Each structure stands twice: as C-alpha cells, then as structure tokens.
C-alpha cells in the first residue's frame, strides 16, 4: 500500500450520504415493451405446445432433426420444412442446481434448469426447461425425463405450457 494513503486517506462514503442527497445521482426507469413476431417456425412450435405436443423439424440434407424448429438448417443452410412430431420425453444433457432467483435473491428451494434432448430429435438437439418433482441431489446427466403439461384449458401457446420435466 502506498505511503501516501496516510497523507491522503480519502473521504469515506456511507449509505446516509446517498440517502441525504449529498451524493447526486439521476434515476430513470425505462419503459421498454416488445411484441416479437413469432414467425413461421416458432408459431407452429408454440401452436403445437398449446396442443400438448412437441414438434421439431428435419433437414433433408444433413438429416438432423432439431427442436425448436427453424426455417433453415444452421449447419448446412438447407431450407427446412419437414415437420416431425417428437415425444415429450427426453434425456438430460446437462443441468445445474440454481440457488439464486431471476432477480439475484437467494432461493431456499433451488431451481433445476436443464437442457433436455428430446426423444426423436438428433443427438445434441434439445430444449431448455426446468426439472421438478425430483430431489436436486438425485438429478444426473443422462437421466430420463418426461414433460408435465398444464391442463389443456390453461395452455396459451408458450414454452410455459410445459410446467417442467420430471423423472420417468
């Protein structure tokens, strides 16, 4: 530490200095709203989730089947329109046990986000979702899981139409 620290110790700040307006800041709360058009591929994906089904799409050139579906193969640039219904079961590719919430506060009960390779899709093609009805300590890579759906009348055409995946 520099010897000057003793000569120039600085001025400590406290929360009170902020609260009392001695430190000047400007606050602004943004108003940002978006309505993203889902488009051809994701509209069908969401519509099928509402139907209680997972749909993927197959590339006619490299033969890979991916989910969520897309209009062009990201590997070989082939247009894709070969729709394939997939099962609502799959295998955990990777997961984490997350003890902090969306807003960075501490969670007592952890969330378990996982990439689930859906049965019927190509190896490595999966969807990101949450695991539940399972003890966090019991989750393993390679575990077989199954979708738990919302009741049909509560589904809206969203990824949350699947509540979570649970062990089969």
């Amino acid at each position, binding site marked *: 530490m520099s010897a000057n620290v003793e000569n120039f110790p600085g001025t400590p700040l406290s929360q009170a200095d902020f609260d009392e307006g001695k430190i000047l800041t400007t606050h602004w709360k943004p108003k940002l*709203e978006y309505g993203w*058009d889902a*488009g051809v591929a994701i509209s069908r994906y969401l519509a099928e989730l509402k139907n209680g089904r997972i749909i993927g799409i197959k590339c006619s050139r490299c033969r890979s089947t991916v989910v969520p579906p*897309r209009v062009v193969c990201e590997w070989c*640039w082939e247009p894709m329109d070969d729709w394939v219904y997939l099962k609502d079961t799959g295998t955990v590719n990777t997961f984490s046990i997350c003890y902090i919430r969306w807003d960075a506060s501490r969670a007592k009960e952890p969330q378990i986000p996982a990439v689930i390779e859906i049965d019927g899709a190509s190896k490595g093609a999966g969807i990101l979702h949450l695991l539940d009805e399972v003890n966090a300590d019991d989750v393993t890579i390679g575990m077989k899981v199954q979708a738990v759906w919302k009741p049909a009348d509560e589904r809206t055409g969203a990824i949350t139409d699947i509540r979570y995946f649970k062990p089969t």
Partner: protein
Amino acid sequence: MRQVAIVGVGYSGFRSITPDLSYKELMYEAAAKAYEDAGVDPRRDVESFVSVAEDFNEGTSIFDEYVPDQIGGVLKPVHTIAGDGIHGLIAAYMQVLTGAMDIVMVEAHSKASNVLTLSDVVAYAMDPVYNRPLRANPLFIAGMEMNRYLYKTGTTEEQCAQVVVKNRANGFLNPSAAYGASLSLDAVLSSEPLSHPLKRLEVSSHADGAIVMVLASGDVAQELSALPIWIMGVGWCNETPSLETRDWESATYARNSARMAYRLAGIRNPRLEIDFAEVDDTFAYKELQHMEALGLCREGEAGLLVEEGTTELDGELPLNPSGGSLGVGHLLDASGLARVLEVVLQLRGEAGQRQLEDVETGLAFGWRSIPTTSGAAVVLSI
C-alpha cells in the same frame, strides 16, 4: 490498396408490419437472396459476417448471439456493429482490405413494428442527466435543427415539403417501398405540426425489412459477378453529441464523412462526378441539408434545386430515386444500407420503372437519426 466490390444484394420487405416472419426469418430471406445473387454458399464461401444491430431496438442484450444461424455464420467469424448500416458496410469493406478475407457479408434489419415503445427508445438516446429529465419528445431536436437551417440558408417550408412530394412519388415506382404516395404540396404543408416547423408528413414512417450485401476482393469479385459494383471511397464522422454546442445549421458530420469518401475515391468535384445520390431523408429538411453538406450543391441552394426539379428522377442530379426513408420507410439502422441498395440497383440497371439513365457513380449517405450527429458515406461505381 485492394479493390473491393459489392457482388450480391438481397432484401426482404419493406412493409409497415411483417407479422408473417420473425426477425430471424426476415434476415434469412434477405441473406438467402443475397447469396443467390452473388452465387456464393455462405457455409463454404463467406469468410466473415457483419451484422448491424442496436440492443434497445432488438429487445435482447448482446444481440450478436442471435445473429449467426439465420445468415449462415455458425462457427465462423461474426460480429455486430451498433451503428448505421453504412458503418457496417465499411466494417465489412475493411475486413476485405486487410487481405485476411476475400468474401464478407454485411446485414442490417429493422423490426420497428415489434418495438412497442419505440418513441421511448429514441428518448433513451438523450443524455439521462441534463437533457432527458425535461421529458420533451426528441422530435423537438429535428424541429430546432430545421428552424436554424431555414433561418441560416433562407430555405422555405415549401421547399422542404417538396422533398416529401418527390420522395413519396418515387416510392410509387419502387415495388419494395412501403409508403409510395401521390401527395400535393398543400397536403404536406397542412399536415399537423409535430415540432415547429416540422410537420407530420415531413417525418418518415418506420418500416420492417432486412438487407444483406456480399462484398468481395478484386479478382474474386470479377469471377463472381458480371457487374461488380466497386466501393471507391468510404467516410464516416461523429460530431459532438452535445445538444448545447453542436452545429445546428449545416450537418458537419455529413460534410466530413463525404470529404473522407471523396478523398479516397479521388473525387475532386462531386457536383460533376456524382451522377445521383441516395441521402438520408429521415426528415424532409435533412435531404436538403445533407445535399449541401455532401457538396452536391452550394449552401442554401438545395431548396431551389428541389423546387426546380433538379433532384427528380429526370433531373440533372436525382436524389433518393428509391423514395428514400420518406417513401421506402425508415428502417432504423438499416436505413443507410437501404440507401446503398438503391445505388447498387441503379448502377446495375436493375431499378425498374425508376431506372436512371447513364449513371456510373453514385453516393449513399446514412445518418443515425435524432439525437445523433453520426453519419457515414460511401461512393460506388461500375
């Protein structure tokens, strides 16, 4: 220095809304057309990918993560530029200049219809401490600048309105323009004031769309294209961001951008050597102010020239034959690339009903709109 040419263009749009396609599908459509036009396979031939995007317009942070797959850039060099489309074009151009790449693409897009609070997003471009708390709609900046420009040059409100009549009429001849219209001067002048002296019809309306261009180095460009469009010079400039101290009269950022581009292109007298131009007309007066700053006429002369018809399709110096942002639609940061697109189509002789005769050299100029003083120019030749 290496020669660089535009060898392929593709675009999707331009419409006031595009509910049928996601932004990814919009970009894919433009990219697929550009690669087809250039005769290249993105997975095999394109060595680098430049995308133009501003996170606030997209609604996603770190937007470059959402780019590679729909433009064929997965597992390849990809980066995003938050600037005007012409800034992106210049970035791609410089990558080819390095010699490290022979074929590079640039993409810019607008999904303005998906930004539900677009006027707020524009407001966030203003200084949060000493400008924004006044809570004035940022259009006042255009009003203030127009006011000072008219005061300085003697340009009239009628002359500004004439730009709208011309560009919306040009839009009628452009199948991809969203806002072609046959308007009377009176209709423009009597449209309601938004921020004096700026009137509603003098403000370009937003549109959705995507534009992709493929650039190639000299020999490769000659092989790929029967009519490569050569990039002769580029320039860009930012003036001070301060609303308190900037030049409100004469678009210095445009003057400096053009000077750089002309110097690189070896252009000494732009009035004689530029056959036509596509210049930013986000607001009608901007076309006139930019025309003067770009050296296409003397200061204070642009208004007279538009009045006399010099800048119409059959005039001596056609300006915004595409319809500009007023006719095509304002494409957020893709607007500059839309200007380049029209220059390319005109030089190739592919501009259909609005095709200009005997054009060899064109200028495109883009501006990042209010509150910026951020501009970029490119000179193109056959």
